[in-house]
C-alpha cells in the first residue's frame, strides 16, 4: 500500500529556559492511504507534537517529512499554509470554531480558501452538514448557541469539506460527554469508510478502537504498533481485548 505520509529521522525540540527538550527523537513513520491511524501514549510523550509536525502545522527541528513525494519540512510558514489547504484537515479538541461566524460560514470559510466554485462549495457544505445531523435550522446559529457535540460536528465538516488527503484530529472527543463523543466518533468512522485517511491523537480506548492501526509513543519514539481490522467489521469484543492487551504491554 502506498504511503501518503512518511517521516525520516524526525526530531522536534523545544527550548525551555535555555535547556533543549527533545520531544520527538529520530522518528521514522509512514501513514498509509485510507488508514485510520491512532497515536497514543502517556502525557508528555509527544503525541500532539508529532501530530502537528506531521501535518505541517509546525516545523520539525530536524529530519524529513514527505507528503507523497513532496518534502515539506523546508517550507516557509506561508508555504505550509498553502500546502495545508488541499492536503490536510484538522479537528481540534477545543473545536476552535470562529466565534463571530455562523455554522455555515465557519464551514464555508474553510471551503472558499480552496474551492473557487462558490455554488458547489455551498451545496457541498450544506450536504455535509445534513449528513452529520445538523439540519438547516442550525446553519445560521453561532458557535455559542451550539452544544459541544454539535460544535465538533461542524468542526469535522469544516475539516473534510476540501476532501483532504489526511484528516488530523487531536483528541476530538476530549471535551465531550460520552453521548456526544460517540456521535462524533461515528462520524469519523463514516468518513473513514468513505476512504479518508485519518491520523488521530487520543488517550481514550473507545476512540482508539475506531482506528485500524495504533502506534504507541514513548519519549518521542514509536515503541509499539498494533494493527486492527476496520471498526464494525469484526468482533468488537476481540478488537477491544487485543488493543487492551497491546496497550497494557506498552505500559498504558
Amino acid at each position: 500500500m502506498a504511503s501518503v505520509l512518511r517521516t525520516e529521522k524526525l526530531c522536534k525540540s523545544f527550548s525551555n529556559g535555555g535547556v533543549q527538550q527533545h520531544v520527538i527523537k529520530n522518528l521514522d513513520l509512514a501513514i498509509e492511504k485510507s488508514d485510520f491511524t491512532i497515536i497514543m501514549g502517556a502525557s508528555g510523550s509527544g503525541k500532539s507534537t508529532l501530530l502537528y509536525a506531521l501535518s505541517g502545522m509546525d516545523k520539525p527541528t530536524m529530519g524529513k517529512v514527505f507528503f507523497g513525494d513532496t518534502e515539506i519540512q523546508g517550507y516557509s510558514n506561508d508555504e505550509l499554509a498553502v500546502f495545508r489547504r488541499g492536503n490536510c484537515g484538522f479537528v481540534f479538541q477545543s473545536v476552535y470554531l470562529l466565534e463571530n461566524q455562523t455554522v455555515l460560514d465557519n464551514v464555508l470559510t474553510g471551503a472558499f480558501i480552496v474551492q473557487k466554485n462558490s455554488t458547489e462549495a455551498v451545496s457541498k457544505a450544506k450536504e455535509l452538514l445534513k449528513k452529520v445531523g445538523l439540519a438547516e435550522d442550525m446553519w445560521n446559529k453561532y458557535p455559542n448557541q451550539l452544544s459541544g457535540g454539535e460544535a465538533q460536528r461542524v468542526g469535522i465538516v469544516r475539516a473534510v469539506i476540501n476532501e483532504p488527503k489526511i484528516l488530523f484530529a487531536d483528541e476530538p472527543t476530549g471535551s465531550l460527554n460520552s453521548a456526544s463523543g460517540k456521535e462524533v466518533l461515528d462520524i469519523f468512522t463514516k468518513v473513514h469508510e468513505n476512504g479518508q485517511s485519518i491520523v488521530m491523537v487520543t488517550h481514550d480506548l473507545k476512540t482508539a478502537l475506531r482506528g485500524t492501526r495504533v502506534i504507541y509513543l514513548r519519549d518521542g519514539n514509536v515503541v509499539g504498533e498494533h494493527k486492527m481490522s476496520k471498526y464494525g467489521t469484526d468482533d468488537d469484543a476481540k478488537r477491544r481485548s487485543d488493543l487492551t492487551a497491546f496497550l497494557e504491554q506498552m505500559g498504558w
Partner: protein
Amino acid sequence: MQTKNIFRLALFNLRKNRREAVGIAILTLITAFLLSTFAANITGISEAFDKSFDESGCKDSAIVIQKNYRDEHLAALNEFDGIKDVTAAKPLLLVSGMVIDSDGNGKSSYSLWFLTETENREFEDFVKGHSLSEDEIAALEHPVWLPEYFEITAKFAPGDTFTILNGGKQYPFTIAGFYNAGLFSDTGMGFTCIISEDDKLSLAPVLEEYNALIFNRDAENNFSWQEYNKVCRERTGESFLAWSVTRVSVKNNVLQFLNIFLYISGALSLVTLAASLFMIRHKISKDIEDQMQQIGVLEALGYTSREISLSYVYEYVITGGIGALAGGIAAVLFTPVMNFMTISMMSRTVHNKTNFAAIIIVTVLTVLAVILFALAKAGMIKQFPPVIAFRRGIKTHHFGKIFFPLEKLKWSIDLRLALKGIFTDMRSNIGVGLCIMLAGTAMLFSSYMFDFFKNGSDNLGKMMGCEIADTKIELMDGADADKMREELLAMPEVRKVLPTADWLLQLKVKGSELPDPRAVVYDFSETENIFLTDGRFPQYDNEVTISLRRHNEDNVNIGDSIIVQGDCKETSYIVTGIVSNLAFNQTSLYFTPEGFLRTNPTASLRVLDVYLNDGYTREDFDKKLTALYGANVEDTMAQSGEGSSLEERIRRKADEKMAVLISQYGVTDADYAIRIGDTLIKGNSSKFVIKKLSSMLDMAKTECDGIAAVTKIFSLCSMIFIAAVVAVILGIITSSNIKRQRKELGIMKSMGYSSKNLMTQTALRIMPVTFISVVIAAVISVIINKYFWIELFGGQVPQNYALTVFAGIAIVIFTYIVTYIGASDIRKVSVTELMTE
C-alpha cells in the same frame, strides 16, 4: 498600600502592552509639543514684533505722497485729533529696482527708499546692528545702511557690495551695516536705504522724489484716511496720489504667514490630541473587555471597582505624563528653532523668550485631558460586579442579524471575510474612521498647499488679481499706443500685448472704509492672470468687477451698484463679478477701457503689457526695444553725459534734462535750442516713445518666492508628520487587534490561510471605513481650502479636484499599506499555539 497595589497593576498592564503604551506616549508627546509651541508663540511672536518695532524707535504711521504734494497736506495732518510728532521727509524711491544678489549671480527686485541718516533719525532711532568698524565705514566711498531684511533674508553681510541696477547703469554701494528699520522694512512698503548726502544728491536726478509724512497716533485714535483725503482735496482743490502705512499694517503683513503656520500647527495638534484620546478610549475598552475575568477575580479578592478603574487611569498618567512632559521639554528645546524661524520670516532681529508658563499650562492640560478621558472610560468597570464580570469574560458573540453571509457573496474569500469583520467591532471602526477623517482632512489640505506652492510663487501670482506680464511699457503721452501695439505684435518675441492704464492710479469707492482701490483696466477676454470667483468680467462701460474682499467686507454683491470717485468725478457702476485679488490691499476695481474713462476722462491707455513667447527673456527684449525706439525716459535720466564729441555730450545732457522734466514734473512736450558760437543744436521730446519699462513679474517673484518655498516645505512636513501619526495609530490598533485575535488567527491558519491572506483581510477590513472617512475628509478639506484663502488673502484658489481625488486615493492606499504592514505580527501567530489551549 492599596495605591501601591493599584500602581503595580498599572505597571503590569504597561509591560503587557508595551507597544501601545509607547504609541500613546508618542501621540501625547506630539500633541503637547505642537500645542505648547502654538500657545507659547501665538502671542510671543506678536510681542516680539512689537518689541522690535519699539526698539527701532520708529513712529507708527506714514503717508507717502507721490504727486501734487502741497504744504496744506502737512498742515491738515497736524490739525487732526490724536495726531502728533509729525515729521516730513523727502525720500527717493526706486520702484521694483533690480539688485544684484549677495552671491553675485542672480538679481532680485525690490522697492528701495533712499534717505540720509539725518533724515532717517527724524522718524526713527537708526538702531544699528551688525556693521563694519567706524574706521572701515569712514573709508567707504559709497556706504549704505540697509534694513536687517537684507542680512537675514537676502544674506548680505557688512562689507558686501550692494549693486542697484537702474536705467542700464550700475550703482554700487558698500554695505556699512544693518539697522532696525521700523515702517519701511518689508517687500510690500519697500526698504529704506540710508546713504550719504552726496550719494543722495547724485541719485536725485535719476529717482523720483516723494514726500513722506511720518507721525504718531494716540492709542485710541481713529484717524480716517478717507477723511484726511477729503480735507486735503478741499484745501488744495486737486487730488493727490498717495498711500499710507501703519505699524499695524506692517505687522499684519509680516506676521501673516507666521500666524498661518502657527494656526496650522495648532490644528495639527488637535488632530493628534483627538487621535491620542481615541487611542486611550480604544485601549481601555479593549483592555476591560479582554481582562473581564481578571477584573472579576480582583473584585472577588476585594478590590473595589474604583481601585481597579484607577489602575487603568494610572497607566495613562504614566504614559500620558511621560509623553506630555517630553513634549513640553521638546517645546522648550524648540524655542531657538522657533526664534530662528521667526527671525527668518519677520526678517527682523527679535528676541522671543521661552514662554515657560504657556508650555507648563499646556503640558498640564494635556495630561489632565488624558486623565479625564481615561477616568471617564475606566469608570465603566463599575457596571460589572464579579458575577457579571465573570459572565462577560465568557465571550458571547450573538448577533440578531447576520451580516454578509458567505454563501451570498461572490468576491474573493479575503474580501468576503474582511467585509464580515467590519461589523464585529463597529465602535472601534467608527473611532478609526474619525481619526482617518481628521488626519485625512489635514493631509488633503496640506497637499493642496503643497500643490499650490510646488512651482514657487506661480500660483500665488494667479491670485494677485492683476496681470503679470513679462514687460510693462509705459508710453509717452505723444506716442501712438495702437501703432506701437501693432509693431510689438509683429515681433517674433511677442505673444500678446494688452493696453491698460497706469497701475498706480488710485480711485475711491463712496461709502467704503476699505483702503483705496487700484484700477485694473483691460479687455478681459484677453487677460490670463485675473480669475473670477463669481459672475463675469465687465463688458460695458457702466459695469465693474470687484474684489472678493470688497464683496465680503463691504457686502457688495453682483447686481449692486457702487459709486466710484475718480479725478473729481463720481460715476456709478453695476457690479458684474467678483475677482480673486491678493495684490493692492485686495480692493482693486476692474473696468473695461471705456468704463474706466467714464470716471477718469483725462486718463489714457498708455501702458502696454507685453507677454513674451517661450524662449525669450525680458532683458533681451528690453534691449531690443531700446535699440528700436531709443532709450526710455528713465534710462535717459540715469545716463551719464559723456560722449565722443561736444555736440553729442550736449545732446545727451539735454535729453537727460527733458527726461527729468517728463518723469518728475509731468511735462508732455519739450523743445530745446542751444547755441555754441555759430552752431545751433536743436531737439525735442518727440524722440522719446517709451517713458518707462518695468516688470511686475520680478517684483512678485522677489516678494512671493520666499513665502512659497517656506510654505511648500511646511506643507510637505505637515503631510509627512500627519502620515506618521496615522501610521502610529493604525499600527497600534492593528497590532493590538492581532494580539486579541491570536486564537481566531491561529484557527484560520490551521485551515490553510496564509499570513498574507490574513494580513490582506486585516487591511481590507479597514477599507470601507477609510473610504467613507476620506470622502468626508475630501469634502471638508475643499471647504476649508476655499475659506482659508478667502479669510486670509481675500482670494480664492481654483480647487484642483484631480488632486483631491488623487490624494484621497493615495490616503486610502497609504492606510491599506500601513495596516497591512502593521498586521505583520500575524506572521508570528503560530498554529501550534492552539495546542496549548
